[in-house]
């Protein structure tokens, strides 16, 4: 379990990093927190010729709030964000706590989790849930890609090989928005078998907006559009929530693996959407009161 030989570079600026990526193209791999990449190197599942370590690149580790969104530099450690959120985004805070264990979050970066695009990972799903945006840079310039377009398959994104994720933008939920997050993992800190996140805003007892994302259930994190449509503009009764979750579950395209069948994932996605929505709605109505 030693990595295959590779060349190692540690640029100090984004431009320098982009130069390396441009020069080596598919042969290069970015190293951020290493929590996903290092095991793949050690198993020789990833065999890059050049490892571009971006940990010393300046200016990628800030957390700021502008225009109602959290702007999170790609190198911000998951653990750091967890602490920096400070009550502003309880759904994101709850999601961060579910990533592995503290030791992993101390190294693992927010941008690394997004770029890695594991379909069972929390952050990609949460970014999709809040209509977040990924900011990238390449030699041809900057792009801002909506989460919905960014994740294209398991461990596959819209990022070009010579592009870098530099920041993720997390629109803060409007005050009074309720949230819910449920996942089933085999053990504490494991990737979810299935998970569901929800953000719900109410007005006059009706659902003003509902956003639901499912993860660990298919190739990418998925917005449960059918559930959202079922709920919006209606009074959220137990029966309606159930209908919404059922409608969305039937649209999912779950995968099977060693730990769970596709059928299990679809079934439990429905259960977890119900739970996440119920929590979100009760939190929203609690704060409305």
């Amino acid at each position, binding site marked *: 379990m030693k990595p295959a030989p590779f060349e190692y570079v540690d640029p100090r600026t984004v431009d320098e990093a982009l130069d390396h990526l441009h020069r080596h193209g598919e042969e290069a791999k970015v190293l951020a927190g290493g929590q996903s990449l290092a*095991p793949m190197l050690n198993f020789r599942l990833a065999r890059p010729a050049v490892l571009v370590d971006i940990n010393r690149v300046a200016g990628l580790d800030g957390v700021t709030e502008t225009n109602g969104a959290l702007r999170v530099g790609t190198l911000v450690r998951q653990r750091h964000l967890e602490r920096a959120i400070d009550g502003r985004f309880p759904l994101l805070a709850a999601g961060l706590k579910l990533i592995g264990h503290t030791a992993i979050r101390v190294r693992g970066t927010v941008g690394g989790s997004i770029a890695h695009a594991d379909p069972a990972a929390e952050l990609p799903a949460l970014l999709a849930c809040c209509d977040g945006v990924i900011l990238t840079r390449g030699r041809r310039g900057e792009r801002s890609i909506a989460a919905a377009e960014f994740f294209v398959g398991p461990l596959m994104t819209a990022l070009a090989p010579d592009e870098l994720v530099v920041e993720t933008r997390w629109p803060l939920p409007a005050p009074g928005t309720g949230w819910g997050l449920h996942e089933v993992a085999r*053990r504490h800190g494991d990737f979810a*078998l299935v998970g569901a996140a929800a953000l719900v805003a109410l007005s006059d007892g009706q659902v003003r907006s509902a956003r639901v994302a499912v993860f660990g259930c298919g190739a990418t994190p998925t917005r449960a559009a059918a559930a959202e449509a079922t709920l919006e503009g209606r009074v959220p009764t137990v029966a309606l929530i159930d209908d919404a979750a059922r409608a969305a579950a039937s649209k999912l395209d779950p995968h099977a693996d060693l*730990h*769970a069948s596709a*059928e299990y994932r679809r*079934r439990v996605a429905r*259960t977890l959407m119900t739970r996440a929505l119920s929590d979100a709605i009760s939190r929203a109505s609690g704060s409305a009161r």
Partner: protein
Amino acid sequence: MGAKYFGAAVRRREDPRFLRGEGRYLDDVKVAGLLHAAFLRAPYAHAAIRAIRTERARSAPGVVAVFTFADLETWMKPLPLFGAPPPGLAAAIAFEIRQAPQFALCRDRARYVGEIVAMVVADSRARAEDAAEAIEVDWEPLPVATDMRQAAEAGAPLVHEAWGTNVGVAFTHAIGNVEAAFAGADVVMSETFHIQRYVGMPLESRGAVAVWDRRDGALTTWNSTQVSHFVQQGLASALGLPHHKVRVIAPDLGGGFGTKASGYPEDHLVPIAAIVLGRPVKWVEDRREHMMSAAHARHQIHAISLAARRDGTILGLRDRIWLDLGAYNVWGIVLPYNTVAHLIGPHRIRNMRVDVQAVTTHKTPNAPYRGAGRPETVFAMDRAVDRLARELKIDPAEIRRRNYIRADELPYDFGMPYRDGNPLVYDSGDFPAALEAALKAADYDEFRRGQAALRARGVYRGIGISGYVEGTAIGPFEGATVKVDLGGRVLVATGAVNSGQGHETSFAQVCADALGVPLEHVTVVGGDTAGVPFGVGTFASRSGVTAGNSIADACHQVRAKLVKAAAALLEAAPGDVDIEDGQAFVRGVPASAVPLARVVQASIPTFAKPGVASPDFEATAYHHVPTVTFASAVHVAQVEVDVGTGHVTLLRYVVAHDCGKVINPLIVDGQVHGGVAQGVGGALYEEMVYDEQGQLLTGSLMDYLVPTAMELPPLETVHLEFPSPRNPLGMKGLGEGGAISPPAAIANAIEDALQPFGVDITATPVSPARLLALIRETA
């Protein structure tokens, strides 16, 4: 000679160095000029080797040597095999046994994924791995047998063609009159239970470092093994060296659990490379290698039937048992017969018939792992008893009350041999008392009272019971040498290897009491073959009893020598001299006290005069332990099941157990906790999964799920102490017990929680996906 330390909760003396990160594990062994080995392992479960080309690997950067079977042919001796039936057992039961030795390197065929094809030695591990990748092998894939029941049938692809079958061990055994018992029963309950393949998974993987001293013709090898004397014997005969020229040292071990008690190809290959190359060689198994090439374990199927009266009295038991051995039958009758000898457990069942087949398949070879057949057999039995209780509408606690052997029935003779060939006779204990103690500690009655109300609110909680009686401390002996040095300090050397059990503490407690010295004056060294000539090693819950009693015996001999010398020094009769706290004194004359150092020094001859006695303050003992002594326990688990997801949460776990006289209650608790944790792994998480081609699908700890502290519930232990009549210290073995009952207790609890659904759990691990499927099948 009072018991000052024996029984005291002395804090583990080895812990400071472990907690500071100063343990010396195999990987910490550094020798000047070390070379590093990596292995090319078979990618196929069954394939013939048509050709191996190593030229590219040999010329790769940093490579010193590449070895295939052909390169080392003269060194290739069959690896050791164990588990021939001892005479008493062979006389009682007709075993069909087939064993084929493995060679350290594949000769012309691979029989499981992970078997070693070639060895690369280079100046770094990374370069050795690079070169191993450059070895080209022409493989011819062959048909594969992976399912143990299919593999047992005629026409299955054969693992060892010469056998004409895949069955490595077969036997039938019966006691009483099982036909009559079944004919006269009110009910017969039958079910087939599957116990998955799961493993010891020590935190520290295996490894070896070998140094060949050409001048002396002597080999020193550090090996992360539980059985250094076995490794020494294997090497001495394989290498044709005198035993005293082969020193095997087990450094600190980060767990063993039986995984490190098997004989392995690397034990031989690393020393052979060191001798051939004349340079020290190191190999540390990485986790990927560990998953596929360290011994696997468990994996049985039981088609079991219980015959009973309507009141729950069990009259008879039939069981057809299959064991999956993996590719080599290394352990002979050990696992199959352990399984049979522990099937009845605490129950009063006089009629039994078992039909057993242990079957080779194209998978990693199995070996005993903490419990060694007992967790499997107890799972089948305790699940069957619960199923019978449900059928008869008797509470699971009550049916056990009606069937557990009473204390006044002990000693209880089964009328059949134990695995060591001696009569299987329970020596001491009180199984009903353990049952009641466990139920009480777990608030069983209160739990039952609250259960229905919780269910009405959609909260599904269950409680499950499992009990076992375990033959522990298998003999025949362990070696221990005790010596007193010039400063009056004591060195204890034993063949028992500390793989986390706290030997440095508990053995020092035994020695300090037996010799009459302060604990701090005692150093314990285990697992160095240079320390004691003959030894067996640590496995089978044996070291406390076997090494403990040998240490006590040796101390008594040394004490007699010290008393004699002190008597001469103090000019008193030996009968009047006593030793306490490291001081020798004339009884009743405290002022006469001299430190043991004085006694030793006065015994050393000087130019002026001879010593007061011979300075031979050393003794070696091999306490003979003819047969096992029976430890027992009852476990109670409380669980909650999320019926929406199939997720199981452990709420509480209680163990009421008897391990005879306790040396150190802290260590006993720790052993129970660790065992329960591994049992929880078996119940809910761990499984080595192969596909139909014999490819291992659980190749990393991302897929093979070991429970962490986060998954464990509060563990409560109740200690019952029924001294063993079978050894002077009154002890019983303890190391394995914790791991035996959790799968049964937890599965019983889950089934209990899901009573309204009528779920039948017939297999472990009970994963959320499996459980939800069961819930939905019945809903």
